[in-house]
């Protein structure tokens, strides 16, 4: 592998991207999904996370163009140069351009958008070309594997981790073999080590989010169903940070990085994503870990590392006197909460594969359970 001269890299781990325009060769949703999959290729082996902007300037601006398109590197019609991208940095740096004189496809015919996007986004993250023929960053296009079976080569992993290091989460082991360990298509719901990214109610149902999926448990069907998040809400990101239902607003709020979305049933509300700082968080807060809304009190609790804030859903304002320390008001509950749920008058705090049932009246942890106990395991 090689990096660009001077090894430019992003100085932050959470990056934004925006698909500025689309190719007429594919439905928009297919382009969205191909780009998201291409980003996930790099997300799975680094500390990097990505969230999508629908307007304004993102770190990585993705566009389709033909011929001369304003960057002095004109495209050359069908064939040869398929796309190009710029190394990390401000303005047009980091951006990726795709030649719309190519026939963009999702399969082996034409030019597979996922494979080319994964390569170009490697450039956007700081990788230059590799002379390893089996590497994604080899400059010559070849449809070698079906995108659903795609694996980064060790050369690609060594290259990107030379810039950003491996994926930090303790429950992910960086595989030192010739390719990233195959990821199961859907997480195993009764895996005793299962943890959740976020948990929320939704009109009497229970949603438990993990990676790109969520389990849905309803009153009339105790057997939980598993779905892709994108199957219900195509514009939502995956690998969420937090989610909660504001019952009085009949909405579920979904959080990732410094953005959040409002969802009503199947519909993502217009005007989202918004910045979490519009809720009243200080600029120092870059993401939240978990959130839960107390139905009776109409107060929402946001958990960030070892502190928490309280938000007044009626006045849409953060209450004064916050943040407070979690341990002071929720004794027995540790920091870095993964998710929180309110049920049967208790709060359930999720930490990795465990959850702690907290009695707010007795102000004590009453039970410790497995996180996936809600999945009938």
């Amino acid at each position, binding site marked *: 592998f090689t990096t660009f*001269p001077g090894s430019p890299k992003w100085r932050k781990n959470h990056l934004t991207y925006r698909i500025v325009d689309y190719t007429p060769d594919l439905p928009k949703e297919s382009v969205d999904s191909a780009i998201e999959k291409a980003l996930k290729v790099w997300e799975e082996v680094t500390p990097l996370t990505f969230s999508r902007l629908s307007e304004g300037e993102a770190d990585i601006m993705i566009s389709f163009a033909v011929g001369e398109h304003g960057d002095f*590197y004109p*495209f050359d019609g069908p*064939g*040869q*140069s*398929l*796309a*190009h*991208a710029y190394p990390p940095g401000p303005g047009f740096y980091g951006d990726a351009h795709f*030649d719309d004189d*190519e026939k963009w496809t999702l399969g082996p015919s034409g*030019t597979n958008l996922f494979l*080319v996007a994964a*390569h*170009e986004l490697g*450039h956007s993250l700081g990788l*230059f*070309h590799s*002379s390893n*023929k089996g590497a994604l960053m080899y*400059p*010559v*296009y*070849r449809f070698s594997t079906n995108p659903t079976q795609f694996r980064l080569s060790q050369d690609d992993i060594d290259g990107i981790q030379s810039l950003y290091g491996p994926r930090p989460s303790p429950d992910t082991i960086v595989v030192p073999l010739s390719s990233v360990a195959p990821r199961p298509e859907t997480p195993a719901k009764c895996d005793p080590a299962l943890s959740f990214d976020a948990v929320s109610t939704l009109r009497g149902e229970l949603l438990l989010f993990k990676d790109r999926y969520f389990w849905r448990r309803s009153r009339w069907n105790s057997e939980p169903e598993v779905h892709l998040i994108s199957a219900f809400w195509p514009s939502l990101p995956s690998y969420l940070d937090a989610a909660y239902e504001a019952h009085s607003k009949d909405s579920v709020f979904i959080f990732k990085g410094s953005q959040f979305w409002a969802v009503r049933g199947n519909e993502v509300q217009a005007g989202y994503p918004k910045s979490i700082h519009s809720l009243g968080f200080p600029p120092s807060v870059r993401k939240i870990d978990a959130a839960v809304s107390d139905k009776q009190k109409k107060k929402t609790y946001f958990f960030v590392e070892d502190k928490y804030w309280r938000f007044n859903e009626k006045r849409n304002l953060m209450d004064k006197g916050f943040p407070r320390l979690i341990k002071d008001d929720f004794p027995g509950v540790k920091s870095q909460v993964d998710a929180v749920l309110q049920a049967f008058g208790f709060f359930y705090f999720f930490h990795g594969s465990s959850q702690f049932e907290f009695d707010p009246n007795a102000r004590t942890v009453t039970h410790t359970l497995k996180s996936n106990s809600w999945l009938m395991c």
Partner: protein
Amino acid sequence: YPLHGAVSKDHPSMEFAQQYLEKYYNFEKNVEQVFRRKNSSPVVKKIQEMQKFLGLEMTGKLDSSTMDVMLKPRCGVPDVGG
């Protein structure tokens, strides 16, 4: 080093190869002068540099296996500096 027809100016693919080397291997624009001088071999060296990078036999010639790879679609980002 006589250019044994490896890349003589009238090689049918020379123009394409010249563009390719300029675009992806930072080859100078004045390749014309280079061909006039008897002992010039920068273009042979450039072809060998490209062949090395792309994992091809470093013949310094525009042989069929080299041309095959050069004609394949690829990323527009150069392989060498610039």
